[in-house]
């Protein structure tokens, strides 16, 4: 009997082989990549050029939660908030052209504040690139200065590797935002999907520098010899997940430690060695004593000009030890005596091992003495005013009490931000979400939505000024639709307060365009089916805050505070940190 013998070379067999390979569209490959990377939440806004990905998302609904924001800027700030409270990488989808350009502010914010973000933007068909096609913009070139890395995909087969690189780059070393721009043809194109491989290394990319033990030994020697050592810590401690290592280090050495606003919550507020906030509106003692310490140990912070004031008068008397994962930060602003490159989770234990167990009681007392001066001159009046208009500080003070120092506090930008950072108290890390480096008004509300998705079991309070809330107020719609349980606390002083304060102090009270009128926020909230309240009287404050916190869901509370209250202390711009003004 003649039978047709199928050999390895027959066309039939080849077809079979082909059938074994999974055919996926580029869009499906994007979603498979997200699942493989452990993503569960995406913030985004659809549009023509990203429609194939959204079409595929329809079938992934059970594995990927998509939060439809009301503006792409809201999407990326939400992703930032999510990343900051969850410690994971935030993901954003946007369409081409205006969708992608609306991400730029958030990208810049995430870049300067080192937030791990992966943005996926749709792009016009590859054959239309560079033709000024409908909704085409050169997203790669626009976003280059504000991304850690970006890449344009024009062929579906590139997608798995591009996304694997994106997640690896965004989350490793000093984290940052990454953007992958995918042309529409690549989203639609079918290709042989060979699975997803996580990226662990890239030839040209060194996430963390090599740790040099000789420098750690030198640093330890300086610390052991120091009479008045002082620690400044920033977000690097949180990003490095080094809170415990950090605490062990300061407890062994007995060194007073002050924080930047990005480092806030890395050390519990009530820790005996926590001496407060650095910088322009920071605490009196750490600013003054920066210019008296003999060894300054900067950990995961970047000597921002808001922290240092005048550089030529900054800690000139001190030997500087700088621990940072980013070698470019060493010597960038402040000349370092001993650099300690590396992730502080690894370098701190090595340093702790070499330092002597010490107490610096006398030195610490100096901080406490100056702190008392600040309490007498500023803090008591701010937190416990007996009469007059309500202060922002007293609102935060009662909030601390009611939340038992355990809420996630998200702030917008301005006076309320500085007050919240100064007075909010924290028990656990990753509890403070703010726009530190870029100072982005409009950040607070969407970031709070993301913060809640990152830590849904916690109470999330968004503290926002009457200026900032109006920049991204449309995100109330997102809260309404998706039920994010965000407590929105508007501190309304009927001014763009921080600019007004500067105009008062440095521009002869010429209040140029800082008067801002507000809508009836509770009515606006009501329109979004969010309950709310507005109070003008101190006697209602506690009860109103209690009602807000007790409500099972989102809630908006507007508190009318003093119109021309100022945030003090203050280091005037162009002054040295030790010239900090108490009033």
């Amino acid at each position, binding site marked *: 009997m003649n039978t047709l013998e199928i050999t390895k070379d027959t066309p039939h067999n080849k077809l079979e082989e082909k059938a074994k390979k999974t055919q996926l569209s580029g869009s499906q490959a994007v979603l498979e990549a997200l699942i493989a990377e452990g993503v569960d939440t995406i913030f985004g806004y659809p549009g023509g050029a990203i429609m194939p990905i959204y079409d595929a998302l329809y079938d992934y609904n059970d594995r990927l939660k998509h939060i439809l924001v009301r503006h792409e800027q809201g999407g990326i700030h939400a992703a930032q908030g999510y990343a900051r409270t969850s410690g994971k990488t935030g993901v954003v989808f946007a369409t081409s052209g205006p969708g992608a350009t609306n991400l730029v502010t958030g990208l810049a914010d995430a870049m300067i504040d080192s937030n791990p973000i992966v943005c996926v933007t749709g792009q016009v068909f590859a054959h239309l690139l560079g033709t000024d096609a409908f909704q085409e913009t050169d997203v790669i070139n626009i976003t280059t200065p504000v991304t850690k890395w970006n890449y*344009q995909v024009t062929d579906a087969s590139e997608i798995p590797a591009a996304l694997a690189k994106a997640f690896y780059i965004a989350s490793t070393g000093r984290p940052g935002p990454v953007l992958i721009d995918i042309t529409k043809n690549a989203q639609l194109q079918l290709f042989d999907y060979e699975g997803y491989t996580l990226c662990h290394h890239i*030839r040209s990319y060194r996430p963390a520098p090599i740790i040099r033990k000789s420098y750690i030994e030198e640093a330890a020697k300086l610390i052991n010899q120091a009479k008045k050592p002082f620690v400044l810590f920033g977000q690097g401690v949180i990003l490095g997940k080094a809170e415990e290592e950090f605490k062990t280090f300061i407890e062994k050495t007995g060194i007073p430690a002050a924080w930047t606003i990005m480092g806030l919550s890395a050390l519990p507020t009530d820790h005996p060695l926590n001496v407060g906030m650095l910088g322009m509106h920071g605490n009196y003692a750490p600013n003054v004593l920066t210019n008296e310490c003999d060894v300054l140990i900067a950990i995961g912070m970047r000597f921002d000009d808001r922290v240092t004031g005048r550089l030529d008068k900054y800690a000139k008397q001190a030997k500087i030890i700088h621990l940072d994962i980013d*070698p470019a930060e*060493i*010597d960038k602003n402040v000349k370092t005596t001993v650099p300690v490159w590396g992730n502080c989770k690894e370098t701190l234990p090595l340093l702790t091992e070499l330092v002597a167990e010490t107490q610096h009681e006398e030195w610490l007392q100096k901080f406490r003495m100056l702190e008392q001066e600040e309490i007498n001159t500023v803090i008591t009046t701010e937190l416990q005013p007996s009469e007059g208009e309500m202060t922002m500080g007293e609102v935060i003070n009662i909030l601390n009490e009611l939340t038992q120092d355990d809420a996630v506090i998200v702030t917008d930008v301005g006076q309320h931000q500085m007050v919240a950072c100064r007075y909010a108290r924290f028990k656990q890390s990753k509890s403070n979400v703010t726009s530190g480096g870029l100072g982005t008004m409009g950040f607070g509300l969407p970031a709070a939505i993301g913060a809640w998705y990152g830590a849904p079991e916690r109470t999330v309070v968004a503290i926002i000024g009457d200026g900032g809330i109006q920049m991204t107020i449309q995100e109330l719609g997102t809260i309404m639709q998706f039920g994010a349980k965000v407590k929105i606390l508007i501190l309304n002083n009927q001014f763009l307060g921080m600019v007004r304060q500067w105009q008062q102090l440095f521009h002869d009270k010429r209040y140029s365009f800082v008067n801002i009128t507000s809508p009836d926020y509770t009515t606006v909230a009501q329109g979004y089916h969010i309950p709310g309240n507005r109070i003008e009287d101190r006697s209602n404050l506690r009860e109103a805050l209690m009602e807000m916190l007790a409500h099972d869901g989102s809630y908006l509370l507007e508190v009318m505070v003093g119109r021309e209250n100022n945030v003090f202390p203050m280091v005037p711009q162009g002054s040295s940190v030790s010239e900090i003004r108490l009033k």
Partner: protein
Amino acid sequence: MEKQEYTITLYAENTIGMISRIAIIFSRRKINIESLNTSPSEAHGIHRFTIVITESEEVVRKLCRQIEKQVEVLKAYYNTNDEVIWQEQALYKVPTNIVAEKAPIERLLREYGAHAVVIRNDYTVFETAGHREEIDKLTEALAEYNLIEFVRSARIAIIKDSEGFHKKLKEFEQAEPIEEVVENEYLDKQDKIFTM
């Protein structure tokens, strides 16, 4: 700190947009690039950039760190002119009749080591290579003989103490074997593609 000429030599993956990414680092700080050359390096898939700027050492050092921060940059070095061997190339187009008639031109070209690349009835193109000052001097001299056109290349430079990158590259390669790189299909195939 005093400003002087520095040659930055950087090695980066040969990817689209690299020049733009590097250029932004300079333009953002309002630093003018005096000369920029990019070419494939001795390592597969890695391009070498030679950038000349006039700045203080502190600024150049910080710039190199920022450049090295770029994901696709492997290494950036900076050197003073004493620490590199450098050249620029120049092409000069002069009317052939003048070259033929005026004996001093011939002497001039010999003096500067220039030689003819193309000789036509209407013009002759000479080529020379050297330091900027030498090229400038020849340009100045030829200007008197109806110089029609002149072009000069960016600087190319070899670091005298050149052990650095080779060693580094080996380290990089050990840590991460080379990736599949989509190479320029025309590279090294000039003879087959371009004909005069």
